[in-house]
Every structure is written in structure tokens, then in C-alpha cells.
């Protein structure tokens, strides 16, 4: 695979980019911080057989730059056939509720930016016969919780978009994979109380690679979250109102 990758510098993205690079896929990094991108590119070069690993600027909050970023990835990879987006913003409910500017920025990055980028990439891939779009949503988008609904809303919108994108583009050769991680121990979740069934980024990455190769359109990771969310989605509203959850 030739993968344009947004979010490879940290957390699950770092683990996934490594898993891809180590098995021989070509990766091209897109992101905001050029110094961080360069460090991660060197890491991937050392780990995988494909060197050099290129990178170019992309800010999920600025859709105007997406076309140029995809062009750069296309050139760097000699024609990309997959886009992976693990990058996104996170904020605690209380911080987002108290700071409208921060909330707007989070919605912009997690929803607007990611949607526009994936849509653009899907159109490109379809035009050349097909490919894969894989983006990380979250279990937080499956059902609203009072403690996390602002972040959850951005991911709920993204999940619906990815579902639709898969419906619309599969017959044109573009597969869409929506990854819904449960709680995973990364720098993003550092400092949060760790719930049961927390996962590790490397295990999530391995599962995502398998799903990227297979034909699924949705993946819960760790896998147990599929069943947890089945239960949570089925909870009556009266129960959700009562529990501090």
C-alpha cells in the first residue's frame, strides 16, 4: 500500500504507521509540526524497508491546504492508494464547555476538516480506479454521555459521514474503514482515569492493519468495545439520565 498518513507522529497513529512501515508499505506523513514529522519520518525509515519517508504540511483545521497536501503525498508516493487519518483534537468536557473557541476548533478539526479531506481523497482515488480511506472516529460517537458529548458529537458526525462515504464509493472501488477505538492508553488519554478494557496502541494498530487488508467498513478496537457499545446503545434513556456516565 502507498499511504498518505495524517496523525502518524503520536499515539495510535504512531503505532499504526510503524506497523505499516515495518511490513513494507510506503508511508507519507502529513501534519502541522514539521519538526515532529521529520522525527517520525526518520523513525519509520529506520524501521521499514521503504526509505526515504517524505512529509508535507497539512492542518486539519485548514481545508484550503488539503489539495496541495494530497498532491505532495501523491508525488512522494508515486500515486497514493490509501489515506489514513488518525489525527484529531481532544478536550475534556469541562474545558470544551468553558471555552467556545476551543470547542469550535475541535469541531472544525474532528468533523469539518476530516470530512472534507476524506471526501476529497475518496474522489481522487475513485478517479484512478479505487483505494482505501481509513479514519479514526471513536466509541464516544456511538452514544451521547453527559461527561463526553461535545467530543462525542464531533465523532458521531464523522462516523455517519464515513458510513455514507463507504456506501457511496464502494462500487467505484474505494473502501472506507471507520475505526472506533475504545479507551486506549496514549498521550491523548494520559491523566484520564483508566476504565476497564483499556487497550494498548500496538494492539489497536495490529487490528487496524488486518481490517485495512480485509473488507470491513467498521472496526471497534479493542474488539470487546463492539459488545460494550452494543449494550450502551441499548440502554434506556432513563438509565443514562440517572447514572453519572
Amino acid at each position, binding site marked *: 500500500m502507498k499511504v498518505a498518513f495524517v496523525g502518524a507522529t*503520536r499515539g495510535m497513529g504512531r503505532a499504526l504507521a510503524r506497523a505499516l512501515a*515495518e511490513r513494507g508499505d510506503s508511508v507519507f506523513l502529513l501534519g502541522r509540526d514539521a519538526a515532529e514529522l521529520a*522525527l*517520525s519520518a*526518520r*523513525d519509520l525509515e*529506520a*524501521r521499514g524497508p521503504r526509505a526515504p519517508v517524505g512529509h508535507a504540511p497539512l492542518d486539519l483545521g485548514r481545508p484550503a491546504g488539503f489539495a496541495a497536501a494530497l498532491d505532495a503525498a501523491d508525488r512522494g508516493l508515486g500515486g497514493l492508494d490509501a489515506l489514513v487519518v488518525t489525527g484529531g483534537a481532544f478536550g*475534556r468536557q469541562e474545558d470544551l464547555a468553558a471555552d467556545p473557541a476551543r470547542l469550535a476548533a475541535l469541531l472544525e478539526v474532528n468533523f469539518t476538516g476530516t470530512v472534507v479531506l476524506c471526501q476529497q481523497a475518496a474522489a481522487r482515488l475513485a478517479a484512478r480506479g479505487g483505494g482505501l480511506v481509513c479514519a479514526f472516529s471513536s466509541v464516544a460517537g456511538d452514544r451521547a454521555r453527559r461527561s463526553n458529548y461535545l467530543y462525542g458529537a464531533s465523532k458521531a458526525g464523522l462516523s455517519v459521514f464515513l458510513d455514507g462515504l463507504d456506501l457511496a464509493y464502494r462500487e467505484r472501488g474505494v473502501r472506507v474503514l471507520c475505526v472506533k477505538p475504545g479507551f486506549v492508553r*496514549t*498521550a491523548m488519554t*494520559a*491523566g484520564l*482515569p483508566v476504565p476497564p478494557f483499556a487497550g494498548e496502541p500496538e494492539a489497536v494498530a495490529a487490528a487496524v492493519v488486518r481490517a485495512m487488508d480485509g473488507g470491513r467498513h467498521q472496526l471497534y478496537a479493542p474488539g470487546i468495545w463492539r459488545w460494550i457499545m452494543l449494550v450502551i446503545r441499548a440502554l434506556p434513556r432513563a438509565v443514562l439520565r440517572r447514572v453519572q456516565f
Partner: protein
Amino acid sequence: MTELPLEEVTGWGRHPVGRGRVDRSDGPGLPAGEDPLVVRGLGRAYGDAAMPAASGGLVVDRTRADRILGFDGDTGRLTCEAGLGLADVLRVFVPRGWFPPVTPGTKFVTVGACVACDVHGKNHHRDGSFGNFLERLVLVTADGRRVECGPARERELFLATVGGMGLTGLIVEVTLKLRRVESPWIVLETVGVDGLETMLAGLKRSADDWPYTVGWIDCLARGREVGRGVLMRGRHATAMEAAGRRRPRGLPLSVPVDAPEWLLNPLFMRWFNYLYYRLHGGTLRRRLVTHERFFYPLDAVGQWNRLYGRRGLLQYQCVLPRAAGAAPLVAILDRLGAAGAASFLAVIKDCGPASDAYLSFPMEGTTLALDLAYRGAPTEALIHELNTVVIAHGGRVYLAKDAVTRPEDFARMMPRLAEWRAVRDRWDPGHRFRSAQSVRLLGDRA
């Protein structure tokens, strides 16, 4: 930054148990503020080396800073962030024919910890400790500066950092030389030995021809059989020897809960040790094993420390100078046998010359390592007794394992402690880097 939650923090031995606020960010510098802090890697130090000085203290976990910054495929020179795990180094580089120059008995340690503990391995008699293969370190010191050091640059800081238990600064980058190997396989020879003298002679005899040697001792054998065990020696297999070999797929095993304390009764331990001796002792056998099997047998069992029950274990590792001969080792093993202090196997290994690093553990002589189930004051008293033997013969204990040694005993074990203190004081006069261990052994403020 929101307040970090309090967590339970212990060493791998799970005794003592403390609490700390663990900063797991992946940023390059120190946490803001002036709070004292302890640097922690993957938590495999047995004792209190990576526990906060005071309850609720700040613990800096930089295992997310784990990027490879450069690798030279001609020379094996690897530069990485210090949080990179040895397991990752093995996974990435063994298939390409490179191996860590020195490895401890677990791969679940960071490269930074290998520096901070100046770890040694089965090749110490030939290659010395981890510090011998370092070309360059980058530290963030107490004042927040990035400082580069190495064998020829800021040499004193380098010598104080290698084996310095993370007390000179946060190690952020490491450059080391990997070793070329032809295959991921190890040619292993095992032979039973009937006593300590035979074991020591066997280690000595094997040292010339074998890069890796180690002995496993049945430490419940008494009298004439003291030191009875299995001598193991290994070397990297050549490509020809390893041709066609496929890596076996091991089942992931894990100890799901704390074992009950009655499990480790003396009878069971005696039986286990005896069985091991029967199984692996006897006449010389030669076979090919994976490097995981040879170097990291315990890594195959997740959370094996739970076998020692809820109260945990103390690991005791000492080294005795060659000149002391076998007598102190016999005394230690006798004492353990008499105490019926349950231990699975004891590990014995001959060491080569000591390193120049001030607090480095190994010295020319023999090292002995064993697990003791923690049973309160009697276990601690036993260790103090063993320490007395060690001090009387000019030996010392390994800080990566230690949880109970007294400060006055430690000072007697470490002839270069004053030199180390002077360098540390120069770089960290306020002792911002401190640990439960440095409070206990060095008199740092809690």
C-alpha cells in the same frame, strides 16, 4: 495541565508499595515547576529505584518518547529516544542481523534504563556492561538544559549517568553500537554440575570460547551439594547452522492473579528446583534455541511476579570479587538454605572487569541473583545478613534490584560513591532528581 491522579507505584517486586502522580506525556523536556521527580521506564526495577521519593511525588514516565532517530546499517550505530524498548530494538533489528551489545534478563526495559542501571548480561565476562557500548547521551538536567555527554565529552557527567539510576538528569537520547549477528538463533549447551566449585570452574573454562555463559543453581541444595545446578553457554548461530529454522509460535502465557502464599512453601520449591536440575542437568546437551528463549525465558510468562503472592518479592543480587573465592558464595547459599527462603532458581555468573562508571554494579568476580518471597521483617533481616557477608569480602549489591539495603552498608560497598556525589551535586545541587531509593541510600530529602 490538569492535576495528575494519584496511582499506586511499585517496582517489579511489588514491595514496597507507594503512590505517585505519573506524568506520561511525550514532550521532550521536564515537567513544569520545581517539584522533585523520579524518572521511570517500564517498571522492571525490582525495588524502589523508580518510586517517588515521597508519597504522592511526581513520576516522569517518558516511555512514549520511543522513536528511532537514526541507524547506520554499515556500523550498527543506533540513535534513539531513551524511551525506546529493548523489545522494539529486537523486533526491528534482529531480522536485519543486529543485536543489542548487552542485554539484561528481560526485554521489557527501555534503552534509557539500560544506561541508568548500566545493565549487564550473560556476556559480561567478555564484553562488560551496557555503558561500554555507548557513544553519546543527551540529558535534560535539573536546570532544564539539554546536555550532551559521552566517553570523551562531559566525561564525568557521562560516568555518573551510566549506572547513576536516573539521578543525574532525564536521559532523552542514546547512541549505541549494535552487534552484528548472522541469525536470530542461539547455539545452547547445557551441562549439569554437582557443586559450586564445579560450577565456578565450568564458568571459567567456558569463558574463553563462549560469549554467553550463566549458571542456574538449585539454591535449596545443602551440604556437599551446595551450588548444584546447570551450566549454560551460548553463542549466536551462524546462518548455516540456522538455515531452514522457523520461529516457533509460543502461546502467550500470563499469571492472571496473585498466587496464594502457601504455594511457595519450601517443599514445593525444593521439588521445583530438583525437577529443574533433573530435567536440564545431566550430560552435555547442545541444541538451537531462539534468542527469546535463551535471554528472556521469564518474559514468556506475563506478570510472573504475581507468583510470589500479594506481598511480593525481593530480588537479591550481589557480586563478589574473584579474590574472595567460593567461600562467601557458599556462606550465602548455606544461609539461604538454612532460612528455607523460598526461591525458584538462583542465577550465577562470572563478571569481567568493572567499568569506569562510578556506581556501575559489576566487578571482576562472581555475581549471584535470586528471588526471595517477601515475608516482612525476617526477609529484610536475611538480606542485611547477606549484605554483611558481601561487605566483608569487598562485594556489592545491584541497585536495580535493591529495596532494603541500609545506607551505611551501601556506602561500604561503593568505593567511588563520593566521586559520584560530587558530580551529581554539580549538575543537580537541589537533588530535583530523587527516588525512594535515593532517599533510603543517599540521604536525600523525602
